[in-house]
């Protein structure tokens, strides 16, 4: 809870930075503040205190996810420091919008009442609609913002309808009370309860961009400024998946049979469709967008297999995915420069132009593709092991085939970096901060791959 208050305070501090004129120090202050928030989480460990008459519960699941959100946000601010320097306009506003959406993500990871779920999603989304359109001169950015807004508020409508129907059937917004009620009144639930569960599933599937509710994701990720895309595909995805997990693992486990079949269909579609579509993309941002949709499929596979026992695996997978994504987007952001759409040819000969960035991106892509010894491999391995142990072997076969397809499109970028002649032979200079970030991300990738237990044991 203290962590949440610190993050809220940070966003107000960053608004004050414009008036009090300490903009120069803003990124440093924000990073320190987020680190302090993460440190405050440690003292709440194993306490599982609930706040505001059970609206929020900071159990170990919530604390672990808040810690991950803070950690990835620190990496994001580090990565975006260049962007903020290049675009000094409205720097404080952008910073505070980003922090507000972190607040939303924390609420989504720690809610116990569906009112908090709704408010968390909206705090997160409203800030992101603005950020997606923050490049006002670019038609791509505006189009991305508009599509994101339309799809986001459409999905919110479904989510709210689901919440209202669940409330009507169970008489409570509290997900633990709903779980207790559905267990004790399993035979007398009205039919609209099941309609509500489906609506909720659709609404949350939109938010985590699971197929067939993913169609906004490639457009929005492709059109938004690259740093904002990096934020959306890491922090926002972590928050949305935490919310999804909480809703179905804590709130609705006793009605598992009503949604498990649909979830299985969604899982298979989310595994197959984006991985095949990504093969035909030429824009790197869209490839990464489809890959991020595809990764949701692996997480959903773990969740389908074992809704209540998958939290550790989901957490490890998300951590490894987020670190690799930040690494990939930080390189993409530097290679891109001022151009709006970036094709694979931009990466031709990157190894000759800047070896460090090329190695960093290679490791990130290998991790995303699931090649050992990188964390993405162990994430996938644990998901598959969990699913096989629960008897979902056919789904695992589908997942293995799709991750092989994934290897193909990740390697297109890697091959371009090492074996194609560069378009411009000039070296690509990067600032010291970005070099340090590349080093840190490479070390993190190895560390996560070598010591998966340290992360896995957090919430299992």
């Amino acid at each position, binding site marked *: 809870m203290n962590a949440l208050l610190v993050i809220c305070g940070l966003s107000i501090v960053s608004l004050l930075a414009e008036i009090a004129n300490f903009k120069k120090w803003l990124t440093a202050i924000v990073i320190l503040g987020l680190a302090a928030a993460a440190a405050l989480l440690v003292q709440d460990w194993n306490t599982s205190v609930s706040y505001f008459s059970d609206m929020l519960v900071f159990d170990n699941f919530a604390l672990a996810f808040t810690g991950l959100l803070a950690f990835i946000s620190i990496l994001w601010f580090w990565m975006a420091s260049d962007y903020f320097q290049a675009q000094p306009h409205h720097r404080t506003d952008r910073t505070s919008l980003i922090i507000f959406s972190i607040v939303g993500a924390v609420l989504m990871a720690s809610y116990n009442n569906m*009112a908090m779920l*709704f*408010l968390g999603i*909206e705090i997160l989304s*409203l800030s992101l*609609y*603005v950020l997606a*359109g923050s490049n*006002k001169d670019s*038609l*791509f950015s*505006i*189009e*991305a*913002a*508009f*599509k994101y*807004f*339309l799809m986001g*508020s*459409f999905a*919110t*409508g479904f989510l*709210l*309808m689901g*919440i*209202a*129907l669940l*409330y*009507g059937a169970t*008489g*409570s*917004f509290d997900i633990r009370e709903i779980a207790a009620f559905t267990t004790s009144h399993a035979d007398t639930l009205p039919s*609209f309860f099941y309609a509500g569960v489906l609506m909720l599933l659709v609404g949350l599937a939109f938010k985590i961009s699971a197929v067939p509710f993913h169609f906004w994701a*490639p*457009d929005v990720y*492709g*059109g938004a400024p690259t740093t904002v895309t990096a934020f959306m595909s890491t922090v926002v995805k972590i928050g949305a998946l935490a919310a999804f997990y909480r809703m179905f693992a804590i709130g609705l486990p006793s009605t598992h049979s009503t949604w498990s079949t649909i979830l299985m269909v969604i899982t298979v579609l989310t595994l197959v469709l984006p991985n095949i*579509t990504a093969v*035909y*993309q030429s824009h790197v941002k*869209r490839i990464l967008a489809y890959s991020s949709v595809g990764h949701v499929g692996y997480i959903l596979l773990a969740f389908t297999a074992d809704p209540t026992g998958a939290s550790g695996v989901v957490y490890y997978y998300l951590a490894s995915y987020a670190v690799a994504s930040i690494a990939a987007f930080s390189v993409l952001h530097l290679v891109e420069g001022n151009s709006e759409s970036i094709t694979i040819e931009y990466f031709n000969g990157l190894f000759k132009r800047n070896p460090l960035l090329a190695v960093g991106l290679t490791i990130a892509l290998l991790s995303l593709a699931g090649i050992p010894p990188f964390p993405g491999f162990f994430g996938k391995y644990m998901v598959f092991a969990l699913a096989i142990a629960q008897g979902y072997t056919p789904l695992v076969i589908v997942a293995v085939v799709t991750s092989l397809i994934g290897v193909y499109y990740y390697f297109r970028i890697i091959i371009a970096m090492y074996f194609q002649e560069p378009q411009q032979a000039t070296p690509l200079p990067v600032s010291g901060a970005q070099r340090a970030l590349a080093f840190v991300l490479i070390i993190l990738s190895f560390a996560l791959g070598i010591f998966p237990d340290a992360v896995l044991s957090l919430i299992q």
Partner: protein
Amino acid sequence: MNALPIDYYVWLSAALFTIGVLGVLYRRNAIIIFMCIELMLNAVNLLLVAFSSRLNDPSGQVFVFFIMAVAAAEVAVGLAILVTMYRSTRSTDINILNRLKW
């Protein structure tokens, strides 16, 4: 209100909600789409109030206030985005938004 079975309210809200969904899917003018999204949210509000009254539980009505406040904020952001879009394209027709394609 207790004279009416709760199912009537559920059906009415479902009908309003469906009209909203169909409007979002079929209309091409951005402002009308906004109105249809509002219709979806208000269908939810109606349902929440009906359930709240039936269950004798005020929390449903409190939730309605949350939805109203958030919907107002959402429309403010949405209209701002729409104005930016109109400035560059001179249109509120969403068929213009086709630059981002695979």
